[in-house]
C-alpha cells in the first residue's frame, strides 16, 4: 500500500509554480522525512495531501486511492499544520472536547492519558501553554483520531532542543505502538537519521530525492582524491556534487559496483551529507524510475 501517490502533480500560485511535475509513490509503514529549504514547496505538498489545497496540475491520492479532503481521507489522516494551530482561547479540556466532537473515531482514553502524561493542566488556556506543550497537544489530538497516517508540517521548527527531543520520542513511541506511517516536513537536516527511514527532498518546487534511507546510504559514497582528476575520474559515477577544498576533492556520487579510480578512496556518507549535497546541487536527482511509480 502507498500512503501517498502523485502523478505530474503541480501547484501554481498566481504566476509562480510552488510545486511542479511531482511523481511520488511513498509506501506505507515508514517514517518519511520531507526535506527542503524554505519555499521549496514542502507545505504545498502536505496541504495537497490533506486537501487544504487543490492541485493545479496532475493528481494526488492518499492511502491507495482516497481523494485528499474526502471524509474517508480526513478520518484516516492525523494532520498537524505548521505552528500547530489550535484554538488559543479555549482551555485544554474544551479544546480536547471540541476535537473529540469533530472526529468520529476519537479515542478518549488515549487523549486523556497522553494529556495526563504530559502534565497539561486541563483548565489552562491553550494560548498560555508553551510552544512545546502546544505542539504536544496538537500531536495528542492528531493521534487520538487513531489515524493510519500522521502528517506533520514542520513539527520541530519552533521547539527548543529539549522540547524537540521530547516531541520526537513521543512521536516514535506512538509509531511503535500503532505501526502508523508518518510523513513530516523539516528544514532541520541533522537528527533526521535517528528518526526517518524514508527521505523526500524538495528543492524550488522540484522533487530531487525520493527513497528509503538505507538505500540512499548504501548507494551514495564519498570519493576523496586529487583535485585535478576529480571531475574526469568520477564522471561515470553519477556525481551529485564535487567539493574542491584544498588539494583534495570530495565527490559525493553513486559508484554502484564500479571499481574505484586510482588515487581515490571511498568513504561512507551520513544522511545529512547526502541531503546537503542535493540541496546545493538543485539539478541533481535521485528518483526511482517511472517503473517504480505504480498506479
Amino acid at each position, binding site marked *: 500500500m502507498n500512503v501517498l501517490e502523485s502523478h505530474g502533480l503541480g501547484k501554481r500560485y498566481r504566476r509562480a509554480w510552488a510545486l511542479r511535475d511531482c511523481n511520488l509513490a511513498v509506501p506505507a509503514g515508514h517514517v518519511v522525512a520531507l526535506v527542503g529549504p524554505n519555499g521549496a514547496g514542502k507545505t504545498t505538498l502536505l*496541504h495537497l495531501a*490533506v*486537501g*487544504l*489545497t*487543490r492541485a493545479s496540475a496532475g493528481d494526488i491520492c492518499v492511502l491507495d486511492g482516497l481523494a485528499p479532503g474526502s*471524509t474517508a481521507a*480526513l*478520518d484516516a*489522516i492525523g*494532520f498537524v*499544520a*505548521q*505552528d500547530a*494551530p*489550535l*484554538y*488559543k482561547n*479555549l482551555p485544554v479540556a*474544551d479544546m480536547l*472536547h*471540541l*476535537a*473529540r*466532537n*469533530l*472526529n*468520529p*473515531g476519537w479515542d478518549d482514553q488515549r487523549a486523556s492519558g497522553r494529556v495526563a502524561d504530559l502534565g497539561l493542566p486541563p483548565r489552562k488556556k491553550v494560548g498560555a501553554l508553551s510552544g512545546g506543550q502546544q505542539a504536544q497537544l*496538537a500531536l495528542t489530538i492528531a493521534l487520538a*483520531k487513531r489515524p493510519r497516517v500522521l502528517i506533520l508540517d514542520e513539527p520541530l521548527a519552533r521547539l527548543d532542543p529539549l522540547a524537540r527531543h521530547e516531541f520526537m520520542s513521543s512521536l516514535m513511541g506512538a509509531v511503535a505502538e500503532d505501526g502508523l506511517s508518518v510523513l513530516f516536513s523539516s528544514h532541520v537536516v541533522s537528527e533526521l537519521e535517528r528518526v526517518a527511514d524514508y527521505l523526500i527532498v524538495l528543492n524550488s518546487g522540484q522533487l530531487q530525492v525520493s527513497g528509503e534511507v538505507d538505500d540512499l546510504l548504501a548507494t551514495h559514497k564519498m570519493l576523496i582524491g586529487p583535485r585535478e582528476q576529480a571531475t574526469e575520474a568520477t564522471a561515470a559515477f553519477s556525481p551529485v556534487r564535487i567539493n574542491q577544498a584544498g588539494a583534495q576533492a570530495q565527490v559525493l556520487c553513486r559508484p554502484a559496483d564500479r571499481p574505484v579510480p586510482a588515487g581515490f578512496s571511498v568513504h561512507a556518507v551520513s544522511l545529512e551529507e547526502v541531503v546537503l549535497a542535493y540541496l546545493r546541487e538543485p539539478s541533481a536527482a535521485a528518483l526511482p524510475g517511472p517503473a517504480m511509480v505504480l498506479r
Partner: protein
Amino acid sequence: MSAIALERARSWRALGWVTWRQQRASVGIALCLLAGAALILVLSGVPIHHTAARLGPGWWIQTRRDGYYSWTTGLPLLVQAVPVLAGAFAGAPLLAREAEAGTLRFAWTQGTNRVRLLVIRLIFILVLPTVAAVGVGLLYAWWQHPMASAGVERSATISADLLAPSFAAWVLFGVALGVLAGAAIRQTVAAMGATIVGYMALMYVTALHWRNRYLPPLSGPASRAGQDAVSLNQFQAFPGGRPLTPSQLAQNEHWYATHHVLTWAIYQPASRFWTFQWIEAGWLTVLTLLLVGATIVIIRKRAV
C-alpha cells in the same frame, strides 16, 4: 432508530456543542446589539405611551410645540444600525478570524466535512439573531403606535425597515453578507469594512429607489389617497389626471376654479404597507440564501 441515524443525530449534537462553544461570543455580540435596541425602544416607548395616554390623540402636536419628543425621529437611526453592526461584528469574523489565526488548517483537517461545519455555524449565527430581530421589530411596532394613532405622517417616524418582517430580513442579510465577506477576503478588518459598505449601499438603494415601487403605484386625486398613503409625486391636474402645462399653472384662481383643477397624486395606498413588508422580507431572504450559497462555493474551492 437505525445505527446510522443514531450516529448522525449524535454527530449533529456533537457539532452543535462545538459551534456553540466557538460561536457563542459572536452570537452574543449580535444578541447584545439587538437587546440594546430593544432597551432603547422600551425606555423611550414607556414615557411616549404614558404621555399619549394622558393627553389623548392630540399629544403629538402639543408636545411637538413644546419641543418634547423631537428626538423620537432620530431614534430609529440607532435601531437601523443594528443589522449592519451584527453583520460586521458577528458575521464577518466567523471565517476571517479563523483564516487569520491559521486555525482553518485545524478545523478543515478533522474528521468532519468543512461544508457541514459551515452550515451548522450559519444556522447558529443566522437563526438566533433573526429570531431576536423579530422581537425587536414587534417592539418597534408597539413603540411607534402612539405616533401612528396621533396621525403623524408615516414617513416621519416609521422606518419601514424596522418592523418585524423586513427588520428580521435585514439582520439575516447583514450577517450573511458579513460571513461571505469574511470567506472571500479572509481578513477580519477588511471584511468588516466591506460588510458595512455593501450593506449601506443596498440599504440606500432600497430606501431611495425600490421600497415604494414593489407594486405599480396608483394615481388619483390626492384627497382620495388617504393620510397614511406614501406619496411618490403630486401635481396640479384637471379632473381625470391630465397635468397642467406651465402656462396653465400660471393662471389665476378663478381659472383654476372654473376648470375644477385639483391636486393629483401618484401614491402607494396604506393598505399595501404590510404587503410591501413581506415583499421586502422575501427578496432579502432569497438574497441571503444566494450569499450563503456563494459562501459554500468559496469554502469548497478555496485553499487555506
